[in-house]
């Protein structure tokens, strides 16, 4: 069987590119793969089935959407809500009309009015605060032979949106943890708390900063490491000042770091956080990396994150008690080594058990054969 493969690829700075870099070699051991690219999108002519990876970055996925509209195939939904992608493909090109039409087609005239209000600045953009209510995914799946998702949550969301095609749930693969290099962090600081992989409001950095400021009162040697792009829009310095935190003394802000340093920072951290609200229905690669490295991980209790077992991660619901529970959880993990180490050990075991790369590749092949009209053998 020959598979046409459409995805961002390294060196594009994208989580989906990293995902494909991990998956492709395993897939190529099992089936013939023709990898399409932005410059040569038709290189996969004459294939049995096409595989399209979709995420919310319009820069990385605009050409894939165009190819999907031209030729049907299996769609890998890395996020269930693709409102931001649709907005990027319309509003990002100065075309509000097609954006509003897309919203109305999927969610009706009231949604169109809301979207119109957001364009006028009267309400926040829908993709920022209500992505799962208005996921704008239906139009993108019109030409899909079936959909691959990574979680039960994503599967349920598609069912609730009335998607009637075939859905395969295939676990997100974990890479093999390598030797961690020197992350270049100051000596003698503990605990090291890290939030890596995007400094955005969605990752609840302001809430994390507030909880960390509380932790620092009892543990003045604690260090918070923030790495990822997007920090400019958070106005971190103003937020740190308001909380009495000092950049470079209490909080290290590193911006986007290369993959190797990312993993070495994670490996050196005592506690890794991946908070989120709202969720787009994604599965977090950085959480799986942290679990695989045996770190104590704290996540928001929603979406896919809620599916992680209770003894493997610490979960914090996004509600009235979020700040208190987050601070209390950080304190518990910082002060109780048995809980922290036990959580890390359980995380590594869980990742080996549930996120095996070979099994993921086998499941892809099975889904692709099925979509191509075969009986499940490549």
């Amino acid at each position, binding site marked *: 069987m020959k598979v046409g493969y459409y995805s961002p690829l390294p060196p594009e700075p994208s989580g989906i590119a990293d995902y494909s870099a991990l998956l492709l070699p395993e897939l190529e051991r099992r089936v013939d793969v023709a990898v399409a690219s932005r410059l040569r999108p038709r290189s996969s002519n004459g294939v049995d089935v096409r595989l399209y990876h979709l995420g919310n970055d319009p820069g990385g996925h605009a050409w894939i959407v165009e190819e999907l509209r031209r030729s049907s195939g299996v769609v890998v939904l890395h996020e269930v809500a693709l409102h931001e992608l649709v907005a990027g493909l319309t509003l990002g090109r100065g075309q509000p009309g097609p954006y509003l039409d897309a919203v109305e087609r999927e969610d009706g005239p009231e949604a169109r009015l809301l979207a119109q209000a957001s364009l006028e600045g009267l309400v926040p953009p829908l993709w920022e*605060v209500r992505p799962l209510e208005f996921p704008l995914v239906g139009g993108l799946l019109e030409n899909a032979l079936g959909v691959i998702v990574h979680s039960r949550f994503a599967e349920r969301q598609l069912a609730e949106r009335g998607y009637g095609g075939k859905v395969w749930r295939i676990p997100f693969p974990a890479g093999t943890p390598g030797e961690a290099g020197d992350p270049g962090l100051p000596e003698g600081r503990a605990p090291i708390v890290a939030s890596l992989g995007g400094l955005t409001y969605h990752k609840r950095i302001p809430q994390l900063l507030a909880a960390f400021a509380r932790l620092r009162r009892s543990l003045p040697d604690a260090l918070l490491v923030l790495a990822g792009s*997007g920090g400019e829009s958070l106005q971190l310095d103003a937020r740190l000042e308001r909380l009495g935190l000092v950049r470079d003394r209490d909080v290290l802000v590193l911006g986007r770091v290369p993959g190797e340093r990312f993993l070495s920072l994670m490996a050196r951290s005592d506690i890794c956080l991946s908070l989120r609200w709202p969720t787009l229905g994604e599965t977090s690669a950085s959480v799986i990396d942290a679990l695989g490295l045996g770190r104590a991980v704290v996540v928001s209790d929603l979406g896919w994150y809620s599916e992680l077992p209770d003894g493997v991660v610490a979960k914090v619901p996004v*509600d*009235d008690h979020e*700040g208190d529970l987050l601070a*209390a959880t950080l304190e518990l993990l910082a002060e109780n080594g048995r809980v922290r180490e*036990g959580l890390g050990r359980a995380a590594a075991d869980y990742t080996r058990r549930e996120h095996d790369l070979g099994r993921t590749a086998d499941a892809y092949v099975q889904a692709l054969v099925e979509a191509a009209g075969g009986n499940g053998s490549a």
Partner: protein
Amino acid sequence: MTSERPLSDDEIAAILAKLREEVYGRPPSAGGSEPSVAREEAERMWPVSADRPFLEGTGPRGRARGLGLRFPKSVLRKLMRWYVEPAFADQRRFNAAVLRLLDELRAREQARDGTGRGAEADRDS
């Protein structure tokens, strides 16, 4: 500490569940009803600044235009900073004070209802 018997997954889950129960047994120390979109937006927008991220359009033309404009935009920002930033700094202080005031009012209201938090929560806000 590490020579003690390792905790099982179930024991860890029980410890985390107990912690959650304890925290939920107390009145929350900050924030509004869960999660208030208005509060989320206020928390997001209060630190106003002229330093906004550089955005690019989609497609090769949009990216090329964005990249081409990045340098002149950054120069213009630096040149205008002395003029616009003091006003933004005042606005940030005012916005932060309003959010603190909201939290303090909420704390007072809770104290009056008998569910109050102490002065500690005021410091957190």
